[in-house]
């Protein structure tokens, strides 16, 4: 029975040497936004993953619980070998808890028959930069 199972395409990652996800800076600096009591962090995402075009932006506390924030697009489209700069806006009142700004690779459903390794890279909001 089990010989009938089509296993060949059960893959946990793509065989490519140029599948990289990169986010900078590691420790972003706080900047004041044009809105009162809202601060801004400027980050950059570089997509060298041929298999991924979309990344989700997320803000977490130190225990990786989701926190409220604002950005232009929570799901960013980043073409292969493209660099995208994005801003994350955080309420000053949330700054005590806000710790990690992360981007997480997302797959479109049609491509999931050939899945990839999910990657998540975070930047840390350090106390001294708040």
């Amino acid at each position, binding site marked *: 029975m*089990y010989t009938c*199972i089509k*296993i060949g395409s059960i893959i*946990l*990652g793509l065989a490519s040497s140029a599948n990289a996800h990169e986010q900078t800076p*590691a420790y972003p600096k706080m900047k004041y936004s044009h809105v009162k009591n809202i601060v801004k962090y400027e980050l950059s995402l570089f997509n060298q993953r041929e298999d991924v075009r979309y990344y989700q932006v997320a803000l977490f506390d130190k225990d990786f619980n989701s926190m409220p924030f604002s950005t232009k697009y929570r799901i960013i489209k980043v073409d292969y070998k493209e660099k995208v700069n994005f801003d994350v806006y955080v309420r000053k009142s949330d700054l005590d808890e806000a710790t990690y700004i992360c981007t997480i690779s997302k797959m479109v459903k049609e491509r*999931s*028959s050939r899945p990839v390794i999910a990657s998540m890279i975070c930047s*840390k909001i350090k106390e001294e930069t708040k």
Partner: protein
Amino acid sequence: MKYFIVACTALASPAFASSVDIVGNVAAKCVIQSAKAGVYGNPTADVLSTSPSDGGVLPVIRIDVAIADTYVANITYPTSFTSSPSLTDSVAWTGSTAVTQTSDAGMSGYDAAKTVAGSTTTYNLTIAGSTWFSTASTATYAVNKPFTGGTYVAQVTASCIPA
């Protein structure tokens, strides 16, 4: 005489822009790469395994860090299928992650220093350079039940978190 003076003046002029600075900056940075595909083998009716002895291929993730002691790597083996045929019973998952290659001999201690919590293995990336991690994954279907025919997809998650 006039031309001679002009020529002498030009020769005596200082050479402008004789040197140009090149400024570089090495900042903390982490890059995650999927270095090698993983494939499940199907050694018995109820088992899917990435172990080479079971006919599978271990997926390999490469993580590069530019500066030592700035990042922690978390690698999580799958505990569910992201897509599969309809399954009526439960699947038991096991797995592990290990360092398979390093760019610096000092990284050889990473495996001894790793911590494991559930399906997640954590490494402190204390040395700048590249580290290759392989993740083993096994899915076992309910006792004495063969997996339903079809394509099964699972996902390894790699995270890079500043320390």
